[in-house]
């Protein structure tokens, strides 16, 4: 959630970017797919062999 907070705090920087709402939605979506919900198959571990 850190990123969302950073985005909100840095809202001024966002004004140069069109469609900021869209960006925030995309970010929120990306963050909700963090490894704790393994829907994306994002794994934290690095195996020695595939």
């Amino acid at each position, binding site marked *: 959630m850190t990123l969302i907070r950073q985005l909100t705090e840095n809202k001024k920087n966002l004004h140069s970017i069109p469609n900021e709402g869209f960006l925030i939605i*995309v970010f929120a979506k990306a*963050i909700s797919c*963090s*490894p704790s919900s393994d829907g994306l198959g994002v794994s*934290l571990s690095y*195996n020695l062999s595939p």
Partner: protein
Amino acid sequence: MKKLVSLVLLACILAACSSVMLTGRKQLLLVPDSDVVAMSLQSYKQFVDSVPPSTDKVNTALVKKVGAKMASVVETYMKANGYEADIANLAWEFNLLKDKQVNAFCMPGGKVAVFDGILPITKDETGLAVVMGHEIAHAIAKHSAERMSTQMLSQYGASLAGLLVSKKSEITRAGVNTLYGLGSQYAVMLPYSRKHEYEADQMGLIFLAMAGYDPSKAVAFWERMAANGANNTAEFMSTHPSDANRIAKLNALMPEAMKYYKK
């Protein structure tokens, strides 16, 4: 496209681009390593609790001994080279687990697990140190946080592609989404993953030398892995480099690693 460029710029402003220890490669971390480590601690514990520990007392002790030795030289190097702040995110752990797999893994924070099925291939303390050096390198290089960041950007790309065709028919939209998915898998995520593997080999080789193990023994270890034949997927389709490419790169890096090796 303009939006994607803006996003990358924005990301660089929000999360400073950092550089990887020893290799100097610039990486983009949208997720702080400390957040990733927090998630890792729980997952690692769950995993280790679900697999029985190895009954091999001698090698269990050896895994812990080699791990502690490598961790100590790595931390010393970090302190001396401006990476001291990252040490707070390390909570080293080295476990030997009872499983036939010829494998080992590392999670953020330096949480290493070695399966005892790999012991016939590691053979001795140096072989084990090759595995350990490689695994530790993934944690030190914050590869998990970087992978997560790339995945986030890749998701953004998918959403953008979806948006561009949102006025087109359902079928076109489905097609674009599938193609984008495949494209990002073969063109972005897999080469990306291999880049991390090569980087872990490079850093691991140096850690090996720093800890007083002969780095040239790493080549012999990967030759034994190749002979074992677990890694037969064509490289472009795999998360990992082919054994032959890996060995060639290790040989090329040997003169550099030798500088860290005190006989």
